[in-house]
């Protein structure tokens, strides 16, 4: 029996090379995928391990990948004795507000730029994209000047308040979100809004009843992007907020858990790990939409 099978395989003509090619391609892709997965999962795993160790164990010379005396002390201490929960609250409020403001502005702006052909709309669309290319490191100095001017003219102090970030972040998120949404809206066939127009829809109804539902994957992609950017933003809060109660997570962890040259590694790792959770949870829930969103527009649905 075995002989017969071998003979049959040997007799098979050479035109099976396509599937052989494919098999090798798959092997290589798995190899690199595993490599990358290990590479990128290493830091979070290290964070988790470290967060479960005592300070003594962290500084002791031993196997850094093994926990000898697991403890939740870092978690308990961080959540009860520090301002961690304040940072978390600030971050959450700022991010949620920024997402809301960004999506409101960018969806409407993108709809106008993609569909209502008005004088200069193409230039404006390019302008939006160029705005995104300006790095925030260049923007925060003029912003300082603007805040100083606001303070002098209206006597409103914008510095050192967590809610100031709600005004600041959209300068980073709106251009990119608008750009993404222009792309999505442009991929919707023109006949669809013409049909809606003939059906008697106003521009606003066309947007809310046709465009937003059809471009939902794009909107979700833009939402995730906006949330991630405002959750992880470091430079603006570092520059514009200083009091402990006004800090957001990334800056808060750095400024309160590093005292001089003393690094409280256990709590830093714990804080970073907990801080990374919300975007992760959002990704997990919206993953399917996000991936659908990345490929949408490539073909007409």
């Amino acid at each position, binding site marked *: 029996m075995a002989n017969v099978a071998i003979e049959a395989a040997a007799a098979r003509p050479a035109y099976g090379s396509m599937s052989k090619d494919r098999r090798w391609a798959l092997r290589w892709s798995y190899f690199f995928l595993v490599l990358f997965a290990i590479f990128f999962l290493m830091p979070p795993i290290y964070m988790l391990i470290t967060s479960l160790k005592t300070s003594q164990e962290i500084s002791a010379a031993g196997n850094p990948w093994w926990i000898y005396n697991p403890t939740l002390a870092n978690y308990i201490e961080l959540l009860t004795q520090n301002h961690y929960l304040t940072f978390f609250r600030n971050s959450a409020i700022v991010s949620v507000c920024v997402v809301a403001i960004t999506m409101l502005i960018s969806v409407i702006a993108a709809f106008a730029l993609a569909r209502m052909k008005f004088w200069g709309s193409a230039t404006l669309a390019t302008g939006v994209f160029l705005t995104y290319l300006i790095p925030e490191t260049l923007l925060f100095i003029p912003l300082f000047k603007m805040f100083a001017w606001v303070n002098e003219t209206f006597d409103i102090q914008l510095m050192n308040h967590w809610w100031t970030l709600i005004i600041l972040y959209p300068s980073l998120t709106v251009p990119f979100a608008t750009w993404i949404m222009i792309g999505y809206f442009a991929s919707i*066939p023109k*006949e*669809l809004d*013409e*049909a*809606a*127009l*003939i*059906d*008697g*829809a106003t521009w606003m*109804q066309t947007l809310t*009843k*046709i465009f937003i*539902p*059809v471009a*939902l994957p794009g909107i979700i992609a833009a939402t995730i992007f906006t949330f991630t950017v405002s959750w992880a933003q470091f430079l603006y809060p570092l520059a514009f907020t200083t009091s402990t109660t006004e800090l957001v997570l990334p800056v808060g962890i750095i400024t309160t858990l590093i005292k001089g040259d003393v690094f409280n590694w256990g709590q830093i790792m714990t804080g970073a790990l907990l801080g990374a959770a919300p975007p992760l949870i959002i990704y997990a829930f919206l993953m399917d939409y996000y991936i659908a969103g990345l490929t949408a527009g490539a073909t007409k*649905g």
Partner: protein
Amino acid sequence: MAQVTLRKIVKKYDEVLAVRGIDLDIVDKEFIVLVGPSGCGKSTTLRMIAGLEEISGGDIAIGGHVVNDVPPKDRDIAMVFQNYALYPHMNVYENMSFGLKLKKTPKDEIDRRVKQAAQILDITELLDRKPKQLSGGQRQRVAMGRAIVRDPKVFLFDEPLSNLDAKLRVQMRTEIKKVHQKVRTTTVYVTHDQIEAMTLADRVVVMNAGLIEQVGTPNDLYHSPATKFVAGFIGSPAMNFIPCQLEQAAGGLNLRLADKLSFPVPADRTARYASHVGKGNLVLGLRPEHIAETRPHTEPNQHDFDMVIDVVEPMGMETMVYFTIGAAEICGRVNPNAGAVATQSMKLRADLSNMHLIDDGTGKVL
């Protein structure tokens, strides 16, 4: 009453004239087809009637009211698009009721109208499906349903069958005609397919280069084309055009096609053509079906001639034969049993009672 009137309609894109001043009267309940090659301005004209394109000059009136500045939704029209343009996130029922909902029509009225339209189009069992679960033909039906439920003054169709395969296209063509016979709404239909135009229309509007070449019933256009363009555009295979000269002959006129080939002009046409004797630029237009195999008895104005056949194409019910006169390639339709053989001589018969004499300079049929 829903007549549509176009007066001196002009459409300019930057400096390009897409439509160059056309006049058209469409009467109530009429099925009008705009037909012409790509870029002739037929779609632009339709979109101007719909209000999707602004007009650069002239007036459009629907039901007696000038609608130049009226937005599409207030023109009381419904449009069916080439790619159906169904709302992908709504099911068929929602697609069809969307317009009525926006107009705040009562729910039971919407329901009645949607069900009725669904029945007309035979899509009742599809009402809760999403567009992507439908086939091309079904989507087209839903797009028509969406137009019907609104009970508009005018239906506008923009090449609605172009995305369907050949067989389905023929089927949907009949379907559209049936629907029009049921609902009797004034219809403007755009297509580049002359067969679609001929089979559907009460009157066909042939357009070319932004102008109307001719308006008429399908039979009018087929049998009495006004211009060379219409003569060549309507009919498949296309009309043969043979350069010719008109000569004075004993007892009438003679049509010379080549040195050894000439036919007497039918007696009832000699007066009409007399002034063109000796002029250049004349072309004889003769449809393939008027060049057939010879038969035992001769009818008036039929003339036999011998030709060497280049190509023979059997179609089953008839056979196409191709040959050349001078530089012109000529097509004839002969009986499959007439014994046409490529590269061999064959006795053919031209029926000149259906001839057209065309002035190639002006493009007019004389």
